[in-house]
């Protein structure tokens, strides 16, 4: 039983990173109806910058860099919108190009080897389970980010403006809201949270240039599990994926253990997509 709980806890730690990647992506989707598929790239770039510079300064630089990349993505979105209404899949493919650029940049800059950093040594005992202190940090940061975002979205005027611009762009514009600036702020939040996820991932499981596409895949799957309903469910979807991955690796051996999370993602995508269709 303890082992099972340990697997769940380990999964939740990895799931926090998936959730923190899915959450801002879902926030952008809820607001603009566009999916930024380069978000995995921001996470990995942030992680590599944090590792290269090191310390608190490195972590701050990582978050700033991820925010800058997210703003660049918003700039591309604006350029697309100037041509007329944006087909959501066009933006997905365009940011897919950005993801390819970022992956290649990391490969060129740091080579194919992965990196990992450990801030804590040893483990602590929680309810009879051995837990890494980093695990608790991840869970606390994840909870703090979700709590803060929910507070901003549902309890502040800025959140109200954001929801207004998401449900009716024309109406929000006519009411005098600066929709473009509001959306830019969402992309800033996306970059900052992705940067934070990068720093956490660096200290948890580490990363390589190939992690970017994997993280994007996990983030979209996490958001899809509950049908792209919003940031909170996307975060929960990330936790679910992390737990499933951990339990599969723990209890099943060989190729099936590697394949099982992907089979579950496939099922989740199909069920999640049907949910979206039903709601539409």
């Amino acid at each position, binding site marked *: 039983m303890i082992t099972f709980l340990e697997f769940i806890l380990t999964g939740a730690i990895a799931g926090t990173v998936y959730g923190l990647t899915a959450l801002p992506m879902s926030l952008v989707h809820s607001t603009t109806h566009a999916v930024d598929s380069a978000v995995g790239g921001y996470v990995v770039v942030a992680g590599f910058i944090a590792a290269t510079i090191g310390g608190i300064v490195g972590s701050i630089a990582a978050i700033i860099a991820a925010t800058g990349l997210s703003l660049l993505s918003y700039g591309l979105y604006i350029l697309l919108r100037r041509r007329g209404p944006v087909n959501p899949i066009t933006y997905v493919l365009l940011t897919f190009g950005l993801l390819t650029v970022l992956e290649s940049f990391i490969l060129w800059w740091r080579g194919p080897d992965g990196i990992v950093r450990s801030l804590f040594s040893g483990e602590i005992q929680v309810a009879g389970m051995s837990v890494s202190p980093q695990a608790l940090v991840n869970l606390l940061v994840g909870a703090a980010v979700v709590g803060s975002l929910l507070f901003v979205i549902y309890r502040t005027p800025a959140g109200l403006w954001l929801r207004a611009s998401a449900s009716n762009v024309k109406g929000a514009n006519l009411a005098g809201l600066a929709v473009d600036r509001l959306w830019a702020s969402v992309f800033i939040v996306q970059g900052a949270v992705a940067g934070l996820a990068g720093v956490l991932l660096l200290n948890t499981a580490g990363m390589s240039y190939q992690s970017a*596409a994997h993280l994007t895949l996990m983030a979209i799957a996490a958001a899809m599990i509950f049908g792209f309903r919003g940031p909170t469910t996307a975060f929960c979807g990330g936790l679910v994926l992390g737990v499933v991955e951990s339990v599969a690796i723990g209890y099943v051996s060989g190729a099936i253990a*590697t394949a099982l999370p992907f089979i579950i993602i496939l099922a989740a995508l199909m069920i999640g997509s049907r949910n979206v269709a039903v709601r539409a």
Partner: protein
Amino acid sequence: MTTLVKRHASALGLVAVVALLLIVFSDDGVVLGRLTTIAVIGLIALSVGMGWGQVGILSLCQAQFAAVGAYVTAILSVQYDWPVLLTVVPAAVLPMLVAAVFGRFLVGLSALTLGIATFVLARLAHIAITNGGELTGGFLGISGVPRVDFAQSQLEFAFLSWACVLIVLVLYKNLMDSAFGRALRTIRHDPLRAEADGIRIETLQTKAFALTAGVAGTAGWLYAQFLSYIGPDSLGIALGISVVLMAIVGGAQSIVGPLIGAAVLISVGDYIPVESARGMVYGGALILMFLLAPGGLAAFAGFAGTELRRRRRHRADRSPAPEGQEAVSWH
């Protein structure tokens, strides 16, 4: 005959240019190798273009369908001593069957979900191949795949590859001009209209998805012979992404667009001294293409040609009337 040539003008023109290049550079192994690579990878990109450009199915697992075709060729010819020429049938049919089975469940999904689902399928295929034991050779792969008897030299094989490209292009064009192709285009542009017309959308999309897998499988048949080796990373996930970029950069909705995209990106990639930086060029090209020419290079070339002809006509209309003729004034 003239109508036939006119109908397939773009495909014939492209293949004629390549045939000329093959004759001119018949002694240059590097050029022959590059042209064969363009044909093989271009066929996989073409299968992406068929799916995304004509049917709206964004598939990121076309390289894995090609891998299935390549493994079938390698297994049957190396382990079971089949004549390589015969293996083209199972190499094309098996990916079609796999696509038909998965297609039944996938084609109803939204474009984004379908893209991600096919990416997951690609990962699963990679896991299956690396864990295939003696059958697939695991991480080592299978080497010593023979070539068909009539294409042993590099030049002959390059001609064979481009002959396959020409056959696929002609069949593709005919298919898109048929009732089946028109129905697919209707589904792509107006699914509600297609449903009202009594078109069985998911069945047709599944068939089209299977056909794209067949084209990719044929490319795999060529690939296994070209390198006489196939391994888990030969036609891997990275290539699956690259061929999508090639199809979009070249123009997924155009018949020859994906081949043009493959030719441009492979040629440019070969001139980049650092291999790891190729992704920056590919990704950058995709971004630029979406911003400057959303229809891809083929559509851009078509637009430029039309614009040039229009300007030439406009200049001719404004030129002074020949001697002996008076300019007509309408005022």
